[in-house]
């Protein structure tokens, strides 16, 4: 038997095995096709609602996943500290919102400039931190065995988490952190709804449409902001000379170096952009979900990593698609299956992809990776 036939046979076997396990264990985890079909039929509007929630959460995951995938594309390192950098994005924006007095104000103008300042600060802050992390923890290990930078990344992740834990105790900077210590979830006020109500609008943009659907200003802002960020990133990678240098470095670092590309500068730029995106995702998640928690980066990081793998790690389009797919999967699992199994379903996808298509959905278009 040829090697190719063997591979195909093995894949078929794995698929059958996996499907068998899903059908065997699925009903325990709420995977009951007839009842799901019935639920969709009974109320199709709910399906739309789950899609809105899934897309908004997926947009945040997609932006985090971009940071993973860009770094992987260029230095083949899974930057485990990235999820925690996103948590720093949440905390840094919350801190700025508190310092500018935005958390307590009702004045719409104040809220708008407060959020704008917080966004800029979170983006710049996380970008700079990410570059510093690369300089400190990864650059010296660039030619070391691949396990070394990975362990260094895990170390950075713990460092960021524990600084986050201390950060969340500093109620003299952010009074709303309260006195419960750093480990508890902190309130991230729902400023967008407050802004909209202050201006006299309904928070639900579809309230007067009579469709019975809910699309809030928060959903819209998250989706639009994510879309803008993704399109600008794509344009940047495709059109600018630095973007071209990034693509070249991703394809072949040594060849790029021979052609006169400053590799260190390109890698720093990658970390800068990835970090900035994490900062933006942090502000978006804070405003959308309303919670700041020192450990939130861990879960978000795992989901975003799954999204990046699903789309094909190293591939930008893949990371975006993967983010949206994971967001939708989590939303459908919460809605139609059983909320306690959502995490299991998401990681089942990770296992399946690694087993069946390790290159991910878009993995073969290497030319696009950056």
């Amino acid at each position, binding site marked *: 038997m040829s090697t190719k036939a063997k591979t195909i046979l093995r894949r078929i076997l794995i698929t059958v095995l996996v499907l068998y396990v899903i059908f065997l264990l699925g009903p325990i985890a709420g995977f009951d096709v007839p009842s799901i079909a019935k639920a969709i039929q009974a109320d199709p509007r709910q399906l739309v609602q789950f899609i809105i*929630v899934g897309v908004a959460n997926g947009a945040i995951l997609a932006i985090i996943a971009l940071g993973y995938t860009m770094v992987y594309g260029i230095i083949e390192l899974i930057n485990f500290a990235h999820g925690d950098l996103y948590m720093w994005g949440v905390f840094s924006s919350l801190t700025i919102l508190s310092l500018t007095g935005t958390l307590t104000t009702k004045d719409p103008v104040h809220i708008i400039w407060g959020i704008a300042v917080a966004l800029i600060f979170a983006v710049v802050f996380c970008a700079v931190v990410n570059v510093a992390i690369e300089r400190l923890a990864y650059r010296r290990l660039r030619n070391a065995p691949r396990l070394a930078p990975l362990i260094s990344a895990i170390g950075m992740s713990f460092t960021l988490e524990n600084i986050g834990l201390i950060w969340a105790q500093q109620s003299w900077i952010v009074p709303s952190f309260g006195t419960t210590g750093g*480990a508890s979830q902190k*309130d991230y006020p729902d400023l967008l709804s407050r802004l909209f109500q202050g201006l006299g609008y309904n928070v639900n943009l579809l309230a007067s449409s009579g469709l019975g659907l809910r699309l*809030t200003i928060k959903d819209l802002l998250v989706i639009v902001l994510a879309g803008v960020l993704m399109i600008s990133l794509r344009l940047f990678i495709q059109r600018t000379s630095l973007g071209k240098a990034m693509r070249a470095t991703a394809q072949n670092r040594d060849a790029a170096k021979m052609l006169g590309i400053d590799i260190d500068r390109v890698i720093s730029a990658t970390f800068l952009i990835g970090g900035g995106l994490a900062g933006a995702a942090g502000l978006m998640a804070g405003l959308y*979900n309303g*919670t700041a928690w020192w450990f939130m980066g861990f879960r978000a990081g795992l989901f975003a990593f799954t999204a990046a793998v699903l789309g094909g790690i190293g591939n930008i389009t893949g990371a975006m698609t993967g983010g949206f797919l994971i967001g939708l999967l989590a939303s459908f699992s919460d809605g139609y299956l059983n*909320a306690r199994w959502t995490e299991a379903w998401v990681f089942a996808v990770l296992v399946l992809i690694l087993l069946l298509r390790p290159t991910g959905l878009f993995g073969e278009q290497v030319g696009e990776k950056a």
Partner: protein
Amino acid sequence: MSKRSFVLISVLVAASMLLAACGAGGSAAKTLKIVSSLPMTGSSLTQTQTIVNAEELRLAQANNQACGGKYTLAYEPWDDASAAQGQWDPAVETANANKAAADPSIIAYLGTFNSGAAALSIPILDQAGPLVMISPANTYPGLTKPGKGAPGEPDKYYPASVRNYARVVTADDVQGAVDAKFMFNNLGVKTVYILDDQQLYGKGVADVFEATAKSLGMTVLGHEGIDTKAADYKALMTKISTSNNGQPPDGIFVGMVIDSNATQLLKDKVAIMGDNTKVKFMGPDGIQTQAMIDGAGASTAEGIYASVAGVPLDKLGPAGQQFVKDYEAKYGKLTEPYAVYGYETMNVLLKALENVCASGGDPSNRKQVRDAVFAIKDFNGVLGTWSFDANGDTSLTDMTIYQAKSGAYTAVGTFK
């Protein structure tokens, strides 16, 4: 050996003998150690800190002594939470129990806060003497009451076949039932959706609630465990918002502690289904803490209900009033409901130690302390006059329901 060094050594030996003699004369009182094991990392800290304060207060009132000064009492508040869990951590609680079991000077273990934690430490301490546990806060019925928990409970927690666990707080076979009756009778809730955090305590109280709700004739639209580390629950709340034939339910009951992401759950509930006047939101004592209101934001939390065993602080008897006065003089305004239970655990333990001494026993003997605790009858404490039954449960059955109003919990009434 030179002559000089011989003299030096002789002097040293003589001096050390002299010091040893002084030491023996100076510390005639033997030290007994009491430890508590409560989650002091995470949102529950708001509650547990007041428990520790109250226990220290009671001990200070006794001048850290027992049996007329024959014994010195030392108290150590241990933390059974880890930052990584953000709440009580099974590994830490087990380590605490093992540490206590191995230290012979420890004569009582005041804990735990979470019923799931108690389920781990009871069997360890049961085989260590047994070392008596008195909990200020565990409410899962299966820990003590036969037939009220899962099959095999509570016997599986007591491998030494002797009870070592008592609690001063009323269990959830009362709490879950009172909550269901309150929602049905007082709030007019006919349809309810139940969520829990999949822990022993949270699921336990939710199960009792469900059974009572069904027997009252309420419609239980669903009962689900949640992922306590999820970023949000908007999809789940969307599902619940149409679970009642396309309409939201009349009420949502959450069986959980504050650390199980309860604030996020409430935020998403309010975002999808509006404030708490239309769709009622109620939980057990695990969310009756200021941290719930602060974490969710006062306007989001406005109108939610939570129940706690016992009567409100201002309805306590004279001894209870005195406690509140003493507490506030030392630690500031008291709003958390568990401080008084913390005080009572130390209170009843000291009483048991006095009883051991009075009957000529040895309070450093764990078994004698255990027997004295279980023998407590008609105890005149800050909660009123009450007894431990053979299971180690209190004879008190009052439950108070609180409602969040303008950023603080306010008592609505006391029920049985």
